[in-house]
């Protein structure tokens, strides 16, 4: 198993349903920057016409996560399925993982005095037998698709085989597993919503990268500490 998520962000309407569902399902601390998942806005213009690009974001569950390497107590670790988890019982709040993360994915949960972040609803939904995350289940425009990259028949892999996509900050070498599907119906929007230097991938071009990273780090995957 190798869990990941694809985001068809051109469909996002910033309704915040995913943010609310995440906080409600996972008991996330209330507060403006206490977000496991969020939708960012960047203001652009196309030929003088302003538009707002909405980008849903969260922890990328990187296959080669730097946040796992820096943690002194193993509170940040890889669970089975390649999910980067946080163990609040062993977190000493050194905040090294927050410094190491290129995606601004982590925050301090003051209710537990520990670092928190998205865990693909592992402890609230996946272990109960659900196959979707709370954010995916609630999204009215079907932006998010959670699935298993190792299952070639899964909806996620089938989608990635048919659409072009990119990942964030690929140069950092973290091999993130949040796939942003390139908008297909509006080429101007597509061009303006991503940096021109971003590498656009296909499943065939990205699969070897995933396999190499998984081979390197999957030995560290362990049963989640719940």
């Amino acid at each position: 198993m190798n869990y990941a998520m694809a985001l068809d962000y051109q469909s996002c309407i910033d309704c915040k349903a995913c943010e609310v569902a995440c906080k409600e399902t996972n008991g996330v601390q209330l507060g403006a920057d206490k977000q496991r998942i969020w939708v960012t806005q960047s203001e652009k213009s196309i030929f003088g016409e302003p538009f707002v690009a909405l980008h849903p974001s969260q922890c990328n569950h990187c296959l080669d996560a730097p946040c796992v390497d820096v943690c002194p107590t193993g509170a940040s670790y890889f669970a089975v399925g390649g999910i980067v988890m946080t163990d609040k019982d062993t977190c000493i709040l050194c905040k090294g993982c927050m410094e190491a993360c290129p995606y601004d994915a982590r925050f301090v949960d003051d209710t537990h005095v520990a670092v928190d972040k998205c865990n693909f609803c592992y402890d609230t939904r996946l272990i109960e037998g659900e196959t979707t995350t709370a954010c995916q289940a609630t999204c009215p425009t079907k932006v998010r698709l959670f699935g298993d990259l190792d299952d070639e028949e899964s909806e996620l892999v089938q989608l990635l085989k048919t659409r072009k996509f990119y990942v964030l900050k690929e140069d950092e070498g973290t091999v993130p597993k949040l796939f942003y599907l390139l908008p297909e119906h509006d080429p101007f929007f597509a061009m303006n919503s991503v940096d021109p230097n971003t590498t656009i991938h296909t499943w065939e071009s990205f699969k070897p990268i995933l396999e190499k990273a998984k081979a390197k780090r999957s030995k560290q995957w362990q049963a989640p500490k719940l």
Partner: protein
Amino acid sequence: MLLSALLLLGIAAIGTVDVLIERYFTQAINAHSAAFSFGNESLIDATRKALQGDIGEVKREAPWTLYIVHYMYMIYVGSGIVFIVAVAELIGIETIKKTAAGFLTLGLGMIVAGLFTILMDLNIPKLYHMFLSPQYRSGMWLMLPLYALYIPMIVLEIYLILVHRTHWIKRVAWVILLLSLALEFVEFYIQAKLFNMNSARHLWTSYPLLPLYFMISSFVASFALMILYTYLSYSTRNNPLCKALTGKLQRWTLYTVMLLAVYEATAYLFIDPKWARIILFGPFRFLFFAYLIFAIGIPFMLLLKDFKNHTVKVIAALSLIFGTYLGKIIFVYGGNAYPMSDRFGVGFEKYGEYEATKTFIFFFPPWSEIAVTVGSWGIVLMLFWVADRLWNITQIDNE
């Protein structure tokens, strides 16, 4: 000195209490809280703060703040003093050998104060997990065995200097000194690894030869503190010694200031331009220029000529101490200054429509953090005062 130590310790204590209250006794709520204590006054207050204000001790965008700046300064500079004394002992510089115990105690006090500062930044009740589930590859974890070895080694060095130098002690002292020098190099390597592992913060990962930078920038401040200490301890008691020692320290300070100047002149050729722009031309530029003036400009001008007046050297030392502290602020805060929200390469993003886009991250530290860092100097003074009372460490060793 005792009065100053107690005053500073009092400030540290007040700051510590406020930090602990905010961290462990201030109610924070999650989405389920209302179900468990509906109508509770503190819950209502916590909800209001969550919805309307800035909550939480740690800012998501800038997790490492003044605690890290201060711990870096105290530990690196304290270690620098220990290193300098160890080298002086090994190569036989008599003036430093005579005053070694005092210098080493100053260095030790600074290291302990630095560790106290970083302790205040951590979740203290959970620290035992560093022993239960150690992660040997983590630079942060490596600090545990490092200081567990290093601090007793310094104490042993002080002891060996204080007991009068018999033959076998001199032999043992050589081994201990060499070991402590080796540990110093390991220490600066581990400290650099700690910052270097944060791959997102390109200021720290692209700084050339980071362990060397830490050593040079620390030694500059170490020499400055040694000048100040010499003046305060010996200017009235033993003016010839004070003169000889400050003369030597002045020269070495000048050499390390020149090294630092060369380093700073070339480092920004290698640093990621996104961070370099913020520091050299962006909101950090005034701080950076102040750092150059106080850490390099003023000391260079005052130390280049051998002024007879001690006051000039003391002013240079104070300028260096202040300037190098600014340098550490730039290093830590600068590392977080470039927002991580530029995820897509299309510009900085905002988290919600009513928020301003952040192009620069800087948060002024809360008063309790300032109190803890300022007050930590009380640990240095208290340790020094106790050691001097018990073992007369400022006594000049003429053997």
